[in-house]
């Protein structure tokens, strides 16, 4: 499975945040949340632009005409219509005889992307799937929202999945609970509450910005993820001893460490690193995978357990063999 990622050039550091917000400590952000800096898309740089860069890197050296399906996971599309994946097809110079689809998911997006890719390939609909994840949550944040501006970073990842990769993607466990919809939401701009007539710019009007109910999200995570973790092992007939490495969606260091202890995963098998990226939503897992493969933390043939969870609420898990 070939993976590449792209991070935008602008960097917002904890020191920058400390200067902007009274009583917000850079040391505390790094110590508790585990983030020192996060990359932010430029004003004129969209999720699609970033996905294009990641996809170009992942297709380098390959015959891009072999790609016969694009899955683009984003909650920051260029337009309501047309589909951003269609635009990607054109910008990448891919064949017009391919499928292209946007997926509106956040932190569970990469897992769902793998599930969709596996399904498309096993059903014979596709043979080589380009899965892109890309997000610019920074553009949804209010300028005074120090908490979320500390947490979220922008970024994109691209993965090529073929028949050979699919033979090494195990069973999935997916879940959804729409009762959590209000706990991580951009309430204005869609069909439910249109933005027309409201003042610009978006980031000065809190009612139009991203809202996250941190305590409820944390509650959801600590009640859902341990059960998901147990189920995915059971579904695949595996125990933690059979797993070489575990990558949960990289939300924040404190939450991840709490989950690790709660389900008893050995520290050396558990990924917990968003120091230089922040929470890049659907890209946290592929970025972690790429980093771990590049540094040799995970090696060919190893079994990696992946768990994504968040906005929706939506969650999913699977096991892959690298």
């Amino acid at each position: 499975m070939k993976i590449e990622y792209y991070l935008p050039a602008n960097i917002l550091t904890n020191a920058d945040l400390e200067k902007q917000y009274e009583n917000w400590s850079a040391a505390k952000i790094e110590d508790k949340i585990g983030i020192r800096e996060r990359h932010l898309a430029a004003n004129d740089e969209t999720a699609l632009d970033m996905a294009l860069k990641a996809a170009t890197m992942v297709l380098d050296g390959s015959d891009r005409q072999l790609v016969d399906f694009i899955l683009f996971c984003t909650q920051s599309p260029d337009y309501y219509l047309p589909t951003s994946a269609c635009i990607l097809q054109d910008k990448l110079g891919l064949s017009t005889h391919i499928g292209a689809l946007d997926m509106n998911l956040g932190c569970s997006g990469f897992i769902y992307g793998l599930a969709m890719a596996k399904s498309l390939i096993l059903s014979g609909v596709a043979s080589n799937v380009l899965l892109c994840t890309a997000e610019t949550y920074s553009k949804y944040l209010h300028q005074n929202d120090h908490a979320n501006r500390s947490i979220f970073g922008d970024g994109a990842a691209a993965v090529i999945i073929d028949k050979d990769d699919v033979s090494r993607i195990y069973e999935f466990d997916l879940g959804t609970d729409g009762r959590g919809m209000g706990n991580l939401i951009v309430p204005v701009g869609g069909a439910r509450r249109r933005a027309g007539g409201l003042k610009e710019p978006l980031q000065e009007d809190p009612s139009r910005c991203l809202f996250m109910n941190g305590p409820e999200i944390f509650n959801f995570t600590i009640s859902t993820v341990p059960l998901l973790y147990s189920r995915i092992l059971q579904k695949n007939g595996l125990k933690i001893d059979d797993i070489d490495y575990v990558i949960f969606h990289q939300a924040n260091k404190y939450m991840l460490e709490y989950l690790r202890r709660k389900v008893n995963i050995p520290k050396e098998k558990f990924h917990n690193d968003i120091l230089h990226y922040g929470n890049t939503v659907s890209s946290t897992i592929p970025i972690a995978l790429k980093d771990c493969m590049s540094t040799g933390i995970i090696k060919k043939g190893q079994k990696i357990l992946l768990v994504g969870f968040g906005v929706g609420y939506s969650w999913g898990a699977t096991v892959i063999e690298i």
Partner: protein
Amino acid sequence: MNKSEFIRGLKDILECEDIDLNEETNLKELACYDSLAVMSVIAFLDEHCGKNLSAAQLSAVTTVRDLMNLADICR
């Protein structure tokens, strides 16, 4: 977990070294009781008291005693 263990544990997670934390302490008036502290409180109650409090229940908490009442299995 008894009352003094609860208060001791709470003091640790809130990282308020110079505060004399007791049942009457108004948590909302503490500078250290921020969004990160609330996350720690949720984890503390989950791990030590088996309690999963909603955001609404937590936002109704003012004093340490309010928190202890919500975690009533820790009496």
